């Protein structure tokens, strides 16, 4: 039985069992590989997407439970039209290996939608579930502040 899923504004018919996590629907059925598998137990944040604007660990959301429109890193912005958070990531040269950055960026974008002028503590709290083994945290903090300022028009 096919399930209808709207990802980055496009509706897809997905023919997979109901309990397949959204992460693996995106990656293996829809070919949207920007969302990463890191742990499968919501411990690393690499699979973070937005569902109706809310940050969600896609490894923990079953296909049948997806409650709204999904936005992935590919839908947030593109190389030709970067989202403010992505542009700040480029400006501050954040990524090293880059594997966790899709999740970091989706989490940061969600934070800024609710908290336009976050403190370091706000950033730390929002991003403490997103693991980075390369150690990009200082540049993530700087980039989130820069993106916030940009979005506020400051």
């Amino acid at each position, binding site marked *: 039985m096919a399930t209808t899923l709207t990802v980055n504004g496009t509706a897809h018919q997905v023919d997979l*069992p109901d309990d397949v996590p959204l992460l693996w629907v995106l990656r293996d059925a829809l070919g949207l590989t920007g969302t990463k598998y890191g742990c499968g137990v919501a411990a690393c944040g690499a699979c973070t997407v937005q569902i109706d604007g809310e940050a969600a660990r896609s490894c923990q959301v079953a296909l049948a439970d997806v409650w709204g429109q999904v936005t992935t890193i590919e839908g947030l912005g593109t*190389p030709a039209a970067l989202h403010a958070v992505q542009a700040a990531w480029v400006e501050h040269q954040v990524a090293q290996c*880059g594997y966790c950055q899709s999740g970091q960026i989706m989490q940061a974008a969600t934070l800024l939608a609710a908290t336009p002028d976050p403190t370091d503590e706000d950033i730390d709290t929002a991003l*403490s579930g997103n693991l980075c083994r390369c150690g990009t945290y200082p540049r993530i903090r700087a980039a989130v502040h820069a993106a916030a300022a940009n979005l506020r028009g400051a």
Partner: protein
Amino acid sequence: MANWGKIARRSFLIGSAAVAGGVAFGVYQYRRELPNPLQPGVGEATLNPWIIINQDGVTLVAARAEMGQGVYTTLPALVAEELDVAWEDVRVIHGPAAQAYYNGGLMSHALPATDYDRTGFQEVMIEAMTVLPKMIGLQVTGGSTSTLDAYEKLRQAGATAREVLKQAAADRLGLPRGSLETRDGRVIAPGGIELSYTDLAVEAAAIDPPRSVELRPRSQWRYLGQSMPRLDMVEKVTGAAEFAIDVRMPDMRFATVRMTPRLGGEMLSFDATAAEAMPGVDRVIDLGTGIAVVASNTWLAMQAADAVEIEWGPAPYPETSEEMLDIIRAALDEAPNSTLRDEGDIDRMEIDPADRVIEAEYTVPWLAHATMEPMSAAAHHTGDRLEIWAGSQAPGFAEARAAEAVGLDADQVSCHVTYLGGGFGRRGESDFIVLAARVAQAVQGTPVQVTWSREEDMRHDFYRPAAAARMRGVLRNGFAHALEGRVAAPSVTRQAMARMTGSAPPGPDKGHVEGMFNQPYAIPNYRVTGHLADLAVPVGFWRSVGNSFNGFFMESFIDEMAIAGGRDPLGFRLDLAEREHAPTAGVLRAVAEMSGWAADRPEGTGMGVAMTHSFHTPVAVVVEVQQQDRDIVLTRAWIACDVGTALDPSIVEAQMVGGLYFGLSAAMMEEISFAGGEVQQVNFPDFDALRIHQAPRVEVRILETQAHLSGVGEPATPPSMPALANAIYDLTGERIRDLPLNRRVRFVV
């Protein structure tokens, strides 16, 4: 990202007679013998193994694994600096696995001697020894050697290519080459005539390059020495960067493996009846020491793998980490494998009644690499060809091992190197690539993506070995009069080299004692012996390798000596370094100034210092900790390093901070333990790393006083761990000699 395969394919599709291999330009005469692996098509030219020019512009071959350390930026910058192409026009690819891309820099670590006081003879030896990696095509990313190896080689590649492009223009215009200039991908002739490189490339490829060209002095650099925009950045913030786990092909199937958790043990039996009946499952493959499940979706494959009932045989090593540590400790009393430093006379020196003798023992646990991208590789076996896509730090070895595993010749196997979702040494191994090849062979004709679960990844690593040290020191008038260190651990070098080349190198294992024997400290009696413990647990290269444990042993003990002698720990080290190695003294002075080391510390604040000279780079670190309620918080850290020449300061800074955090994570909380012969940690909840709210603010100062370019990817890791332990001592008065520290203190979580 461009792809060398695509270039090759396009050439094929055009149906052109490929330009013969003879167009390759040697950089040096002796490199002429190594064939250029790039096969250009019509309208394309490859001026040497690092440069491809076609209608679309200039593509540079990095030939090293981009695992976050910035080689896809710094290596192209070396070529572009001399070639004169605009940065925004530079494209980079990994290129094929090939002998031409051997890493000669690895041999800079091979001499069994300290390297901070290299003699001219040693330089000559190192140069001569690069013949070995060349002969065996040692294309390996590791040892913090990528820029060291590339520094001259890639600038020469850019410069000689520029000169033949100018010669091609000179021939066409009937002008002397010396009257021409180059700028942003064009040759400029007097009178405003401009010819683009793309226009000249095919003609240029037919011209014999000059033997060597004088390289531009630093004062003329446009790209090097600057923080360049990373060429991989936009891809990595838009989800477009392709890691091995992301490789998708038409009709691809998705697989996972479940190998014996008793590493090196056997699989006695399995029952896949339930698994094979699960939705989406194609089949379960018997891999001998484990199974693979092939399905329509990775998650369905993982679910089915869980449902396979498997009986495992015993492991070829003791069942518990406690028993293993006993074996490691016992090796301290056995005959040494190495005595790479033996100054003065430790056995017969006289000890005055006024001298202070101190002794201490330390241990560190096994550690996993835990790269963010679990092990993964895609493979497509078509009968007489095997194509592999993998994040490999050693693609030549991977091709050879995969070929053996599926009964093909090495030249029938191609390993396409993708971005690496973290490497840290783990992806120098070929185990995950061989398994993907075997799965692909079993489903011949169908491309397959083989992704390990995090649990499989964490429980099937080549671990940083557990290690033990016994240290003895003599203080005379507050100065270090003697230091004797014994180190015991399983040998990473022997195991890893045996896997790569089929035989373990005999003789002293330098990697086992690096970070202790080769420190630039003037201690009149200074002996370090390495003792190899015989354990069959798989061990491998983990960021900074032997330095990762010896740095902790040495710099914890130096701290103990300083304090026992009533000395300031930083001043004590400075005394030792000043008489031995000026750059090391320089980083200690810098970090003292940056951290305000001499100032009074507020109540509830502790600071610790440590210095390790590794990968030719001295790095000094100060870590500040505070007691906040019941928790210890890492508030700030300062790093001073001397890298000789900082080719890209932004990347150097990122590597220093990343190396520091990598070590702090291990020191604070990381441990792999065994019970019943199986690794007990399975996922990030029980093998975590530093999170953003735990990460201290860091300030980095990059010094450039050393004559040699030196490594940046690893050397901040070793001193980070003792600096933290020393800071905790400063705060609490408790000397913790066994890692991880969270067995004894509570960090903010």
